[in-house]
Each structure stands twice: as C-alpha cells, then as structure tokens.
C-alpha cells in the first residue's frame, strides 16, 4: 500500500500543537504518513536497482573496454572447455573399460565435487556477505533509509550468492554436461540441471549467512579469529584426510579389494543427510531418466535451501541492525599500529637501495600487510601450491617415469609463473593509481618522481622473487630434478619476477586511473586487462625461451644424468640468455616509459 502523495502541510504539521503531544505514544500525524510498502515492493525495487546497475555497467564496459569482456569470455570459455574435455575423457574411459563400480566412482566424484563446492560457497558467501552487510558504504546508505532490515538483507544475500556461485557454474556445468553426454541423458536432465544448481546454491549461501549473522551478533570481537580458525580447521581436516587417502592409495596395481576400501574412505560424503549427496543422487536419477526419483531429491534440495534461507532472513529482521551496530562499535575507536619486525627485516633486505626508495617500499609493505584482503589471497594460493609441491614426491617420484617427472616439473614452473602474473596484475598494477589522491604529499616530496616507480618495482620484485623462488625450489627438490633444471628454473623465476613487476609498475604509470579507489576495479579495467595479457605473453615467452628448451630436450632422454651433450647445452644456454635479455627489456622499457610519463604528469 502506498501513502497518499503529496502530503498536505496540515498533515505534516497540524496547526494545533496540542494534537502533536501524545503522552502515550507517537504522533498521530506521523503514523498517518508512514508508508506501509507491500512485501514485494522493496524486493521489486531492489531487483530493478540491480538490473539497472548491471545494464549501465555492461554498457559502460562495452564502450570503454571491450578487450576486458573479450578476455573474460575467452578465459571462461577456455576453462569451461578444458574442464569439459577432461571430464568427458575421464568418464568415457571409465565407461569404455567397464571398470568395476564405475557408476559409484562417478557418484563419488560428484559427491566430493558438491561437498567441496558446499564448503567453498559457505566461506565465500559468508565473507562477501560480511563485507557487503556490515562494512560497505551501500549498507550504511540503505540502513539509514526506510527499507526494513530483512529486505536489505535479502538484496545483499542475492548479490553475494550470485557473485560467489559463478565458479559453481563454470566448473560444475561442464562436468555435468560431460556426464549427460556420456550417459546419453534425456533432455529432462539438461532442463533440470539449472534448477538443481539454483536450489543447491541456496543451501551453502544460507548457512554462510546464518554463520555471519550469529558471529557478528554474539562474538563480534573475535569474528576474524573465528573465520581464520574455522578455515584452518577445514583445511587441516581436508589435508589430513587427503594425506591419509594418498598414503593408502597406490598409483598402479589396483584391484577390487583396494577399490572397495578406497570407496569406503568416501562414505562420509554419501550420507543421506548430506546435501551434496542429494545433488548427486538427483542428477544421476535425472541422467537415467528416472524423473520421479530426481524430483524427490530436487524437492529435498529446494525445501532445505528455502528453509535455511527463510531462517536466515527471519533472523536478519532481529539481528541485522543489531549486528551492524556491534561491528561498527564493537572495538575501540582508535587502534594503535606500530612498526613490526617484518618492516625492519624488509628494510634490511633492500638496504642497498636509496634511502628514499627504501622508505617508499616500507610504506607500500605496511599498507599491504595491514589489508588482509590483499595478502590473504596470496597466502591461500601460496599455501595450496606448497601443499601440492610437498606431496608430489610421494605420488610421482617412485612410480612415474622420467618423462612425466620432467613434464610435471615444467608445469609446476608454469603454475608458479601464473601465480606471479596474478600477484603483479592484481596487486602491483593498481598501486600507482592508488597514489593519485595522495599525490599532494608524494608529488611535493624532495625526491625525483621516478623513485616512486623504482620503489614499487623493488617492493614487487623482492616479494615475487622470495615467494616464487621458494615455491619452485620446493617443487624441484621434491621431484629430485637435476641441478641444471633447478638453475634454469631459478633464473626463469627471477626473470619473471623482475619482468612482470616492471610491466605492472610501468604500465600502471602509463595508464593510471586516479579516480578509482578500489584496487580490484583498477586491476580489471582496460589497463589492468592489457597488463594481464602482456604479462601472460611475457610469461609464455620467458618459460618458452629459458626453461622449455631444456625440458623438451630432456624429454627424449631416458636418464636425466645423461643430458650433458655440449652442443645441446650451448643452444639451451643461448636461448636462456635471449630469455634473460627479454626479461631485462620487459623490466626496463615499461619502467622508463612510466617514469617519463610520471615526470610530465599533472595532478
């Protein structure tokens, strides 16, 4: 129901003051003008707002940076097709070999997939929802308006679930499409698939939302510790379980008994009370054309998802505003920060640089380490890669031939290079743009402007070299690679760290965006996308010139110790030299171009 507009002045402020005074309650006049918007009007309004924002943003991106859209679409398509091809190959193999319990194996893969996605979505939706409900400027704006808390919650919840579940679509859908093709599933399977997905994302999304609401309301002071501890607990349990399973599983010589025992280790994922199992059963039933059975599981997924959502939305009417208040005022107004041992260590590490450059590096490092959103992503990826590298020895070394060992080592180098490219593209490229609003002080300091660039370059290259060299050494030592390979890998990583840092800092100065304050938005803009593409090309060329020739040559040898032919080593050495020269160019040219532009720049 809408209120009557316009309001008459007499309705707003009645002439008789006496009528305003109500010892027993609020103004009668104010009651008469309260809008009692219907339940759906706010939801419709927020849907319209989201649709308008998406339309305007798409239009803007299409006009300003079509390259970004093309890159996103190409990368997404590539990932989709790779996952599809691997899934198709795996499932066709299982079917063609008529492997014992192959149906259950696929079921187990689905169970694990949906269980992993559930955990991932609980965490990602929870984290996104926390920031969008409690710390964003938009939340403060909406909460100071007339919309009820549960409507604001619903709007934010939908946004968080949509944002966090795109990975489900990108990784889950090609696997299911492959399953459908291999099983010759009927059309109803493909039609039911999105309905299952929509119901499924409600479940972990709502669990994440419930956790966030409860944590900020009842243990607001320890919310970060709880998030960290629960994440660490999940990783520890998953890591321990994975280690135990790997220790128990041979790479070859499988038999029936071994397979049955392996399947038993996955029994927890097949519990009837686990939502991931409902998804597996429902989709498998749909694949077989058993519609009734499939709809039963679909109903289970949806009813539980909706129940949890209603619970979260209901709770939000009482707890959202209360939680917002607690987050905003739970800790002291001021927090003292001081210098840390890490700052002093870094200062010593870069002690050979000009004192002004050193100060700028420490400033950037402090900003970086005080923003968990920045370093947490690097920590997670580095941690995962370290975990993988420390486990490869047991899996591969004893039971895989040299050719595979050689290939895996090269792939690990590529993965480390990709991590570096992501790090420099996401965190280093926006750094100069972010200085825009502080340029009134940096620009007036008694130092040459290009020192800003050198400072950022040194900060990036130091961090990149330290992390990436450690990772690649770990991988090579675990794989017991020959000394020549290790040396070439160390060189490749050093060239990559310097080249990618030079590209990101230099291009960041050539194409600054001083209006934007969000580094993620700067990273995905036109300049950021161009930097990412340039970085990937540089990565391919560097590995192609420095490391790949040795690996290709070594692939033909049966024994790595025999790879010592002088002529071959000379060619490999020359190519490595060309790669290093390319790295030097990628470092120096963008930095010089950036420095020239920075000197001329007006603020």
């Amino acid at each position, binding site marked *: 129901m*809408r*209120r*009557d*507009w*316009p*309001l008459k*002045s007499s309705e*707003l*402020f009645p002439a008789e*003051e006496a009528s*305003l*005074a*109500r*010892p027993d*309650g*609020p*103004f009668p006049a*104010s*009651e008469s*003008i*309260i*809008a009692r*918007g219907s339940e759906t*009007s*706010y939801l419709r*309004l927020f849907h*319209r*707002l989201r649709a*308008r*924002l998406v339309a*305007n*943003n798409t239009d*803007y991106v299409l006009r300003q940076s079509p390259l970004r859209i093309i890159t996103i679409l190409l990368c997404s398509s590539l990932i989709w097709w790779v996952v599809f091809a691997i899934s198709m190959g795996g499932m066709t193999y299982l079917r063609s070999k008529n492997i014992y319990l192959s149906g259950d194996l696929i079921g187990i893969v689905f169970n694990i997939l949906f269980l992993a996605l559930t955990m991932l979505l609980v965490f990602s939706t929870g984290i996104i929802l926390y920031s969008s409900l409690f710390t964003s*400027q*938009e939340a*403060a*704006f909406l*909460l*100071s*308006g*007339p*919309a*009820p808390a549960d409507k604001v919650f619903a709007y934010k919840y939908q946004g968080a679930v949509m944002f966090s579940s795109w990975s489900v679509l990108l990784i889950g859908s090609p696997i299911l499409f492959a399953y459908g093709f291999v099983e010759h599933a009927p059309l109803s399977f493909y039609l039911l698939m999105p309905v299952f997905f929509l119901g499924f994302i409600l479940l972990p999304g709502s669990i994440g939302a419930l956790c966030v609401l409860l944590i900020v309301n009842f243990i607001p002071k320890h919310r970060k510790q709880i998030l960290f501890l629960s994440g660490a607990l999940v990783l520890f349990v998953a890591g321990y379980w994975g280690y135990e399973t790997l220790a128990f599983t041979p790479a070859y010589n499988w038999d029936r008994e071994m397979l049955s025992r392996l399947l038993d280790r996955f029994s927890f994922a097949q519990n009837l009370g686990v939502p991931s199992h409902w998804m597996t059963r429902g989709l498998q039933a749909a694949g077989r054309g058993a519609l009734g059975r499939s709809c039963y599981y679909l109903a289970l997924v949806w009813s539980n998802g909706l129940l949890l959502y209603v619970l979260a939305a209901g709770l939000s009417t009482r707890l959202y*505003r*209360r939680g*917002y*208040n607690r987050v*905003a*005022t*739970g*800790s*002291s*107004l*001021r927090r003292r920060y001081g210098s840390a041992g890490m700052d002093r260590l870094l200062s010593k590490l870069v002690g050979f640089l000009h004192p002004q450059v050193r100060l700028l590096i420490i400033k950037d490092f402090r900003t970086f380490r005080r923003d968990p959103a920045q370093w947490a992503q690097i920590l997670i990826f580095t941690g995962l890669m370290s975990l993988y590298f420390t486990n490869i020895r047991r899996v591969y070394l004893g039971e895989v031939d040299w050719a595979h060992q050689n290939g895996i080592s090269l792939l690990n180098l590529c993965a480390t290079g990709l991590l570096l490219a992501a790090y420099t593209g996401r965190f280093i490229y926006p750094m100069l743009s972010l200085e825009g609003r502080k340029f009134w002080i940096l620009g007036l300091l008694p130092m040459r402007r290009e020192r800003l660039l050198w400072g950022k370059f040194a900060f990036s290259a130091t961090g990149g070299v330290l992390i990436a060299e450690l990772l690649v050494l770990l991988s090579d030592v675990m794989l017991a690679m020959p000394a020549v390979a290790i040396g070439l890998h160390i060189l490749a990583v050093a060239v990559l760290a310097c080249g990618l840092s030079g590209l990101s800092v230099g291009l960041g100065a050539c194409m600054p965006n001083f*209006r934007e304050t969000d580094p993620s938005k700067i990273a995905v803009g036109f300049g950021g996308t161009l930097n990412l593409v340039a970085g990937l090309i540089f990565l391919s060329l560097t590995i192609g010139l420095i490391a790949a020739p040795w690996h290709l040559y070594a692939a033909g040898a049966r024994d790595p110790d025999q790879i010592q032919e002088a002529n071959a080593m000379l060619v490999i050495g020359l190519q490595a030299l060309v790669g290093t020269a390319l790295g030097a160019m990628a470092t120096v040219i963008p930095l010089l171009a950036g420095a020239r532009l920075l000197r001329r720049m007006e603020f």
Partner: protein
Amino acid sequence: MNEVLSSRTWQHSMISLEHVSKTYGTKPAVLDLDLHIQPGEMFAFLGPNGAGKTTTIKMICGLLFPTTGVVRVGGFDLQRDGDRARQLLSYVPDQPYLYEKLTGREFLQFIADMYGMDREYGLRRMAEVIGLFNLADFVDELTERYSHGMRQRTVFAAALLHEPRVLVVDEPTVGLDPKSVRLLKDLLKQEAQRGVTIFLSTHSLDVAQELADRIGVVANGRLIGCGTLDHLRSQAEMSGSLEEVFLKLTDEKDVQDEKGLAVEI
C-alpha cells in the same frame, strides 16, 4: 520560544535523545546526552573533532544503537520502531553515497520508489528538485563522473525529494563553493520555515550562527552547552561571536577534564 522548547519532553519533540550514552568497546563516545528538538526547529550541533557528533547522528538515523538511553524520532523509538522513524527522516552524511553506475536521475527515481512515492508525484518532485539544485546539466550522466559539488547537490536533492519531516545533515558545506553554500543556507532556512526539523552538525560556526534556532556544543561526548547564542554567551560569561563562545566553552571543558583526570590519578 527556545526556552520553552528546551523544557519540553519527548512527547513534544521531533528528535529526542534521553540520557543517551554510547561506547566503542570500552571507550565512551557519547555520555548521558539529553536533547529534545522541536518540529520546525533548526538545531546546530557543534563540537571539536572526535567529540561524538557523528556517533550521535548515526544514533538518530538508527544506524547505531545507544548503549544506554533512548533515541526517538517523531515519537518512534529508533531501536523498537526504527523503520517507521526512518520514514520521517532524511540523512545527508559527510561522505554521501551514490551508486556510481546510476545516473543522477536514476538515483532520484530509486529514492522516490524507496519512499513509496506515487509515480506521477515522484516525477513532479524530481523535476522540482532537479530545478532547485540546478542538476539538469548533468543529471543524465553516471554519478561516477560527478565532482564533489555535483555529488553534494544530488544528495541534497535526493534527501529532500520525499519531503522528510526531519533532515539530519553532517558537514553540509564542506567542498562547496560560496554560491552553493548560499543556496544551501537559503534552502535549509526555507525547509525549517516549512516545518522541517533540521539537525545540522557542522564546523562552520558562521553557518550555525546564521541559521540555527538553538545550538548544542558537545565536547568529549558530553553536551556542555545548549540554547540560543545569547544563552551560550551568558553561560560562557562573555559577549562575543559564536566562535569565541565555542572556544571558551570547549577550552573550559578541556581544563575540567584534565583536572578530573589529575584527581583520578
């Protein structure tokens, strides 16, 4: 009029804070604030940085809840009946929020829909505020391209669009050119004359002196003076400008606090 106003209780007040205290962790931000503002009154809230002004404003808007005491707007308790209270008010923060990927017109339309305004009336009011704040030149551009002044004018247009009964404004003149400041002052006067209650937090003492019916001075979370300029002058035992009175009152408060601290130690 103002002496009468100050003696009234919440039943008569459009904004009422009854013995309100607020702490951040263990640190108090607002202490035992008792304040009642009448319909149509323009109230200026002054205080040094960190005195508790923004915290008080956020409690009036229902963004923060008092640790003790009650905040009411239009008689509605913000904690129990906040949605109804917020229907009556508009809040212009010191750093206003605009959806960067909406045009000014789309933002105004969103606000009109948010307050459930009838479509025809909403369009008419939009045309009025676009004219009033001279937004026509840029109202169809994305707000991310707006300068500070353009953003501020758009936010004020949005705040007045639904004809609120209470207007809460935090530092409205920061970054505005003299012409815009004049426009804003005239507008606030007009709104107050129309009966809108205005709660104005500012560091611009000349704006407060020129516009306010009553002035409240807050320091270290406590209301150390409240009334007309003459009332504050007599409290400060001096006859000067608001700036001189303000400085004397806040300096005295600092000295008292230091003495209190010394006694405690």
